[in-house]
């Protein structure tokens, strides 16, 4: 490889356009092959670490692969059929849907609101923008463990602050009750990712043409009308892209659940990713876990296709 490339470097001197030594290949052949050689390592690596495992796990999803069983028979669509009867899996879909719809939805509104507020000229704007971005920079698993401390019943600041407000000790175990555990997960998720939405919308808002807004002012448009008929329609592609990025990420929501609730109480806060992790890596039911992963993958592809189609329509 080194010899070939070294030779290639010798054959053509830059800018001269001369055809020198031919070696094993003609200049034309080399010109055709060289770009492929440059991308070959990437292609090989992608094939090895992405394409091959995907195909392999797709094959696994049609087998009864259990660590406790010596044989791994082919069972066709058995795993897929069983998954749609598995109450736990269906519940994990519901929890994932709640995170995506409520979590990402709230992030969108809050992020948009914050971006609107900080899009005007104000003192200390840079400081606020930088401060709002801090949660995005934290690792989700660190966020999960930190919020676990914040929600602690005895020593957590959240209970302490509520206690100050109501004037008596407050020691509620947020993470041990189903409804409040989901609430705690959503608050944590929203806290971390609203700044991302805010940043995307802020960059969108500041890039809008000010002349349009000046014209609207001259026409006597109110603030609401400018928002309704100018800002939102103009930002629509950006809103869709932000939703796309966050939505796909939230569908794979794992780290915070792992650190904050471990899927408990019971399995009431398990998301699809967490369920797959438990099935595949805790119980080593690789066939079943692979089938669940492919259902998630199909869901991701469908949502992605829909949002991309929507984006295309908006752009047109």
């Amino acid at each position: 490889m080194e010899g070939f490339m070294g030779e290639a470097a010798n054959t053509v001197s830059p800018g001269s356009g001369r055809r020198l030594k031919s070696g094993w290949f003609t200049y034309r052949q080399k010109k055709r092959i060289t770009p492929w050689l440059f991308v070959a390592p990437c292609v090989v690596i992608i094939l090895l670490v992405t394409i091959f495992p995907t195909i392999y796990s797709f094959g696994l999803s049609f087998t009864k692969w259990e660590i406790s069983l010596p044989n791994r028979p082919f069972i066709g669509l058995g795993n897929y059929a069983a998954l749609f009867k598995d109450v736990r899996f269906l519940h994990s879909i519901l929890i994932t849907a709640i995170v995506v719809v409520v979590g990402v939805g709230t992030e969108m509104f809050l992020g948009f609101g914050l971006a609107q507020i900080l899009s005007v000229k104000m003192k200390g704007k840079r400081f606020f923008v930088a401060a709002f971005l801090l949660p995005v920079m934290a690792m989700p698993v660190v966020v999960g463990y930190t919020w676990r401390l914040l929600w602690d019943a005895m020593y957590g600041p959240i209970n302490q602050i509520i206690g100050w407000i109501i004037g008596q000790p407050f020691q509620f175990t947020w993470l041990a009750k189903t409804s409040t555990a989901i609430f705690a997960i959503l608050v944590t998720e929203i806290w971390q990712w609203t700044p991302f939405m805010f940043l995307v919308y802020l960059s969108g808002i500041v890039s809008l043409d000010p002349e349009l807004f000046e014209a609207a002012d001259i026409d006597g448009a109110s603030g609401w009308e400018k928002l309704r008929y100018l800002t939102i329609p103009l930002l629509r592609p950006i809103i869709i892209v932000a939703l796309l990025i966050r939505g796909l990420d939230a569908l794979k929501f794992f780290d915070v659940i792992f650190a904050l609730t471990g899927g408990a109480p019971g399995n009431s806060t398990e998301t699809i990713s967490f369920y797959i992790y438990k099935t595949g890596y805790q119980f080593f039911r690789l066939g079943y876990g692979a089938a669940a992963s492919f259902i998630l993958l199909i869901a991701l592809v469908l949502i992605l296709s829909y949002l991309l189609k929507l984006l295309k329509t908006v752009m047109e």
Partner: protein
Amino acid sequence: MWPNNKKYFYKEEAKMRASRVRKFMLLLFAVLFLIGMSVQFGMAGKSGKESAPAPEKEVVKETVVVSGPFSSASKAVEEAKKYKGTTLNVVWEAGLQSQDPLTMGPKWEELTGIKIKVVELSYNDIYSNQLQDHLTGGSSYDVITFSPLWLIDYVTAGVVAPLNPYIDQYMNKDDLKDYLNVYGAEGYGRIGETWYGLPDDGDVFVLYYRKDLFEDPANKSDFKAKYGYELAPPKTWDQFNDIGNFFTDKFSPKIYGGAIQRLEGQVYSWWDGAFSGNGGRFFDPDTMKPMINSPIGVKTLQQMVDQNKWMPPGVEKWGFVEILSAWMDGKLAMVITWPPIGRWSAGYGATVEQLSWVPKTKVAGKVGYVPPPGRPGLAGGFCLGISPDSKNKEAAYLFIQWMNSPEISLQRVMLPFALRDPFRISHFESPLYSSLWPDAPEYLNCLKEAAMKGQMELGIPGAREYAEAIDNACTSAFAGTDPKAALDNAAKRWEEITKRLGADKQKENYALWEKGPWNKEGPK
């Protein structure tokens, strides 16, 4: 082209901005530096104040325990010398646990020239990574470590190599008889007469209680007046509940009646022992129908829910560290947990560097030890095995034989920071161990008694899934689900797991597990 004056203006503006940025960066750096230094010195000052005693330099106590024709430890050293220059990858649980091989590894290297590389993994990752390594054809590990619960799964998957050829060749067979009955039994480290792992840890639950509170005359009379019987370490779960309620009513929030780990992923271990102690049986051995949702199962779970009411707020999310902190701080009258907490609360190892994170004990000399009510859980535990994929199987075996030998294992269970607990008869009878702190003989007796009447967790294929179903039932009940409904759900999952893995095969495995010495007293 810009006019010259405009160019000049922009240049100056850019210069000014750059200067402002530089100033800001300098200021920021100075502030961060000051904060960093103050935190550093503040912490150093604090730790300087609190850690007055110098760390114990010599943590390994030399021991000589040899019975039978020869010492397995010496034999292992002699035979291993031929592998000088080899490196063994040894899997161990991360954290304090791994301080054990990190301490003993260099000694082994000094004796044999074999280097020990400790691969630290979390408890759950040990199970998965060793399996993955084997299934993907890797040979990353030479020595593997496993819980007895995983034994059958590991044997089925071929993750562990049989040790018998090496035992026959190198071990003093008397050492196999030195394991306490429950740890040397079939289903712990061996299946039939085939050894897959050398039992290496005596994990059992112990009830620790505050003798000063239990022996206080005022407490004694108040308790008798309220409940009509003498205040003494509880023998039944009802007594445990009464005593816990009593102390919480009287002393909370300063002191609570007690606490037990209720964190998801751990709580099933406490349910198992209590269920068995109440007379429960996991399956009907003829039909393999789960019996966890029987009235005994429901009663057990209801008892746990009731106990939470007098335990500290938020106990549903407490793990080992929370229990340890509250206990060492003198905030609990009773705890039921693993053995190390008993040693640390007596102040043993308080000055070693590895335990500097453990809160200083405020209860030294005030701690009593008894087996928990009913049947103590034999929860967790470790065996040492060798990987069939290892390129240095014999050297790996010789290392585990040395580590596990009576004399070296005694040194290890006496390491102040070790999480390995006595598991050999010679450990329980060791005068050296008994001299470690004033109450050590009482502690050893309690550990032995608890182990002998202990209930091992259900160790059949799919053990992790069965355990997780119980765990989910417990945390659901703590969240407000009716215990019966929670256990019905768990039983439904058990049925599904059993059916999936083959009811006949599971029936055989359950019969094998029930034959274990831990079932001599039960399950009823």
